[in-house]
Structure formats: C-alpha cells, structure tokens
C-alpha cells in the first residue's frame, strides 16, 4: 500500500477528532452528573427515566395527600373519642338519676351537668381543623351549628371533601354533620333526659338510658369507620414510602453518572488521546528529508 502525506494527515485528524469527542461526552457526564443530556444520548433509558420520574412525582403527591387526610381523620377520631367519653358520663348520670335515691337538688345538679355536657358536644361538633369545620354539612368554612343546637342554614349544596390516595381512588374525609348531630337526635334526647331527671320522671329516665346507649353505639361505629380509614391510609403511606425509596434508587441508577466508571473511561480515553497526539506529532515530522545531507 502506498502511503501518502495527505493520508497521514487526514487519518490523524479524523482519529484525534473522534477521541476528543468521546472525551467531551465523558466529561459532560462527569461534570453534569447525568448520563443523558439530550434525548438521543440513550432514548430507551430516557423513556425508563421519564416513567420513573413520573411515578416518583405521583407517589410524592399521594404521600402529601395522605398526610392531609390523616391529619383530618386524626382530629375526627379525637372528636368521636371525646363524644363517647361524654356519653359514657351521661349514661352514668342517667343510671343514677333513674335509681330514685337522690333528692331534688341532687337531680337538679345532674341535669345541670348534662346541660354542660351538651354544650361540650356542641363545641366538639363545631371542631375546626386548618380553618375548616370537620362536621360541616355544606359550607365548610362556616361554623355548622349555632348555639340553639341547630344546624346553621347556608344556601349551598353539600360540600364534599375527597382526597385522591391512589390513581382514581379517592377517600371521602368529610363528615356529614347534619346526619351525625341532627338526624341522630343527640341534642333533643339529652335535652329531654336533662328535663326528665330534673322533674323526677324516673321511668322516662330509665327508658332514656337505652337511647343514650344507642347513641354511644352510633358514635362508636363512626369512630370505628374512621379507624378503618386511618388504617387504609397507613397501609398506603407505608407502600408509598417504600415506593419512593425504590423509585429514587432506580432513577439514580438510570440517570446518574457512575463516577467510578466514567472516571475510568475518561482515563482510558485520555491515554488514547495522548498516544494519538504524540505519535502523530512524531511520525508526521519524520521524512527522508531529515536523513539527506
């Protein structure tokens, strides 16, 4: 094969360019910390990376949604717990009031205590969380029950609060206050009980005891329902937390530069580049001219 000067020069240039562009690529991966800087760098990995990032983003959002739903449910749970405690005390008072061993002033005291407990229930019914009333029926930012133990009237439709906890899976976190405190008749029943105790209608009082126990069951069921929801959220949260860790690891695996690998590549490329430069510089200088007198 005949080797000509221009062949030497153009081959040298082509190879130097190729080496330099490989080094540039590695350098970019090292300096940015990312394997890919453009879609064409590795389209199939990019596709994987985009899917992973989207899943991570969703998992994080659902995690935040679950946080706020849990906050809401915790407040609800506490409220039901308090109501149950109060009803327990009411039952004690009713049992005592039905026994007929107390005189009139004792009974008046009992009736007074029940009135106080009713006020407490009203307060609980007006519990707010983060500026929102958890037992509101419609307008969530307005106090739902007025001091006469009635539902405050708002000219709007039902206010429904739902939180998405998984793709297309929502959980209702709002409690229907009308159902809980008006339709259940809790205030009316306690009012009646208080009057009966004060007036000494012992038979009515012992009948009312069943009502109070019924109310206790009713609110206990509500609390159990909230507990079930909390459990669901907790399971979901545990799943998302694990998913977030897994996804982050995978994103890093797919998208981040493996520094050790990249540095090794860089060293190899550098050696090749230097070899090409120095051999080129030496060989291209030599010709027969150097040896002719």
């Amino acid at each position: 094969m005949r080797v000509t000067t221009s062949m030497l020069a153009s081959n040298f240039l082509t190879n130097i360019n190729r080496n330099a562009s490989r080094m540039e690529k590695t350098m970019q991966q090292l300096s940015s910390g990312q394997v890919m800087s453009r879609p064409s760098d590795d389209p199939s990995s990019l596709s994987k990376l985009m899917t992973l990032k989207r899943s991570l983003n969703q998992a994080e959002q659902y995690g935040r949604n679950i946080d706020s739903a849990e906050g809401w449910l915790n407040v609800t749970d506490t409220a039901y717990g308090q109501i149950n405690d109060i009803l327990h005390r009411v039952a004690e008072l009713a049992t005592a009031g039905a026994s007929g061993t107390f005189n009139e002033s004792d009974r008046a005291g009992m009736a007074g205590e029940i009135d106080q407990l009713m006020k407490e229930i009203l307060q609980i019914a007006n519990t707010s969380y983060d500026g929102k009333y958890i037992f509101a029926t419609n307008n969530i930012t307005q106090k739902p029950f007025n001091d006469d133990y009635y539902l405050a009237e708002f000219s709007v439709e039902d206010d429904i609060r739902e939180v998405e906890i998984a793709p297309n899976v929502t959980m209702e976190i709002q409690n229907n206050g009308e159902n809980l405190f008006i339709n259940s008749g809790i205030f009316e029943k306690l009012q009646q009980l208080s009057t009966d105790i004060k007036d000494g209608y012992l038979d009515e009082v012992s009948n009312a005891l069943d009502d109070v126990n019924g109310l206790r069951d009713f609110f206990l069921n509500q609390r159990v329902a909230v507990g079930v929801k909390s459990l669901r959220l907790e399971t979901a949260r545990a799943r998302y937390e694990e998913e977030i860790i897994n996804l982050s690891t995978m994103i890093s695996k797919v998208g981040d530069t493996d520094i050790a690998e990249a540095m090794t590549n860089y060293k190899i490329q550098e050696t090749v580049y230097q070899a090409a430069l120095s051999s080129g510089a030496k060989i291209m200088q030599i010709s027969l001219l150097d040896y002719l007198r």
Partner: protein
Amino acid sequence: MLTTGIPYTLPFLHLGTGAGQLGSGVEIEKVVRSRDQFLDQQIRSETNNLGLLTGQSEVLQRVETAFLEPSEHGISNLLDEFWNGWQELSKNPEDLSMRTNLVEKAVTLTQGINQIYGHLEYVYEGIDQRVQEIEKEIANLVDSIDYLDKQIIRIKTSGQEPNDLMDRRDLMLEELAKYTDFTMSGNENGGIDLTIKPAQGERKGELGGLLVAKEDLGNYLSKVNDLANQLINSINDISVNGNNIQFFQPIEDEAIAAKQIRVSNEVISDPSKLTTGVGDNQDGQYALAVAQLRHEKTMDNGEATFEESWQNLVVGVGSKTKEALRRQENQEVLMSHLKNRRDEISGVSIDEELVNMVKFQYAFQASSKMITTLDEMLDTIINRMGR
C-alpha cells in the same frame, strides 16, 4: 487541488533515439492526471448519502434540544407540577394561595409549550431558508462547472491537456454532490453532460436530508398541537361546568394551538374566580376531577395519557436523532476509507519524491562523470598522443 501525475517516463540513456551516441535528454510529451475515475464516481455517490444524513441529523439535533428533556424545564416535569397544583387545590380550595400557586404553574406550563413550539417553528422556517440557500449554491456550482467545461473543451481541441481545469471541475462536482444528486456522463470532446434531479420526488444530498427532516418536524409540530388542544378542551370542559369561567383562553386556530395556549385572563387577573367545586360551592370536587385527568388516556386516540404521549414523542425524537447520527458516523467512516483509497493513488508521498530525486541526481552525476571521462579521453587523444 494538488495532484501529481506520472510526469516522466524514466530516461534510460541507452535508449537514445535519433542520431549520435549521447542521449538527447528528456521531453515531456504529456502530463497525465493519476486518477481513478471509478473511485471518483463512488466518492460522489457516497458524498450524496453523507449529505442526506448530515442534513437530516443537523435538523434533528436542533429539534431535540428544543424539547429540553431530560431537565426540570421539560414539559414532562411542568405537567407533573401542573397536576400537583390541581391536587393541592382540591385539598385546600378555600385557600387563595393554592389558587395562585396553581395559576403560576399553569402559566409556566403554557409558556413552556409556547416556547417549544416557537423553537420548533423557528427550526422549520430555518429549513426553508437553508433549502433556498442550497438551491442558489447549486445554481452557482452548475454555472461554474459549465464555464470550466467550455474551457476544457476549447483547450482539448487544441490538442493540450487542461489538467488543472479538470481537477477543478472534479472538485466542484464533489461539492455539488454534497448538496444534491445528479447524473453525469462524459461526451466525446472531453466535456460532461450534467443533469440535476428535479425538485420533486426522492432526493439525496443535504437537500434530500432537509426535506426528509422537514416532514418529521411537521409531525412533531402537530403532536405538540395535539397536546395543547387536548389540554385546553378537557380542562375547559370540566371548569366550564362551574361558574362559566374557562381556565384556558379559547383557541382561535386549532392548527397552532401550542402557540396560542394560555391561561385565561380572568383567571390570571383574579385567581379567586377560578372554579373549584359544584355550582357556587368551592369544595374542590372539580379541581380533583381536573387532577384526575392525569390518569385518563385522552391522547393518541385514547391510547395514552398526556404524559405518556409526551414521553413517546420525546423518546421518538431521541431515537430518530440517534439513528441519524449513527448512520452519519458510519457514512463518514466509509467516506474516509474511500478518500484514503484516492490519496493512495493520487496523493503525493514526500519520501517517494525524495527517493526519485536522489535517483535522478545519481543519474545526473553518472552522466556528468561520463562526460568528464569522455573529455579526459579526448584530451588524451588530442593533446597527449604523439609526443
């Protein structure tokens, strides 16, 4: 281009022609270009292919950078943020800061879409401009080749070899092959007949590459428009049920939806007007419905969600660019092999020339020695004999 011919026939002194014992030196009869016509033709045709791939990959590289993926400024990330904005709003619909947050994210998203569309459109217009430039360049080259060809014919008919002009003509033909494909045949008086392929139909060279890339880019533009249209329609369909305030400004021309998409002025100027619930209610039900659009397969004839569709588009652009770059690289390797082959035949090797030089110098020295020896012999005969 500097090429050496094989200019000298070796002067063997014992082959003297004509009368006398001495050689009569050397006459240059003809300088022949040492070229391989077949190789030249092959190089031209591969230059065609290289031009095609170069034109295509240059456009595609500009297209893929417009997408800004993978980065936090890419549409996929902006869409993520946008849906999250609706989620947060659905949880806290009475919180004005959540509305402002959502509106900001929506504005970032629409501006991102506008920007990408603008970049792509700019590249698209750039292609047309480049095509015009190339067409002008082709016309210039053809003119120059025609002029050279006429000169070559004139000189050839006078019996001489216009080697330098023919070299220049070959160079221009190769330049022309970068831009477009053509057919060429030599005629009997040393000229060439050249036909450039018509503008219609499949073409090679950079011109061909640009036209292929333009078609691809047209598809990408319409995909971006699809995304914008679908976003506007599905979200407005939901929000219009509330209090008649549309979230996105309605579009006048669906063909350039991605250019025009923006959050409606009413919403921007007063985010509290943004509807989030049923009727007068602001319970976040509608915000949730919008947030859930994320999971709906509304794009690509019900095949993909917004984000999946966008991912397919970006990955598609990436694969196409990668493929074009890879093929371009292969073609460059092929070209460099061919050019090496040509250099092997037509190139100058300094060592070879120097060896020849030394060889001829020795021949010259030998001749001189011959003359000196003869001179001495004659001197002996004429001046010293008979003393």
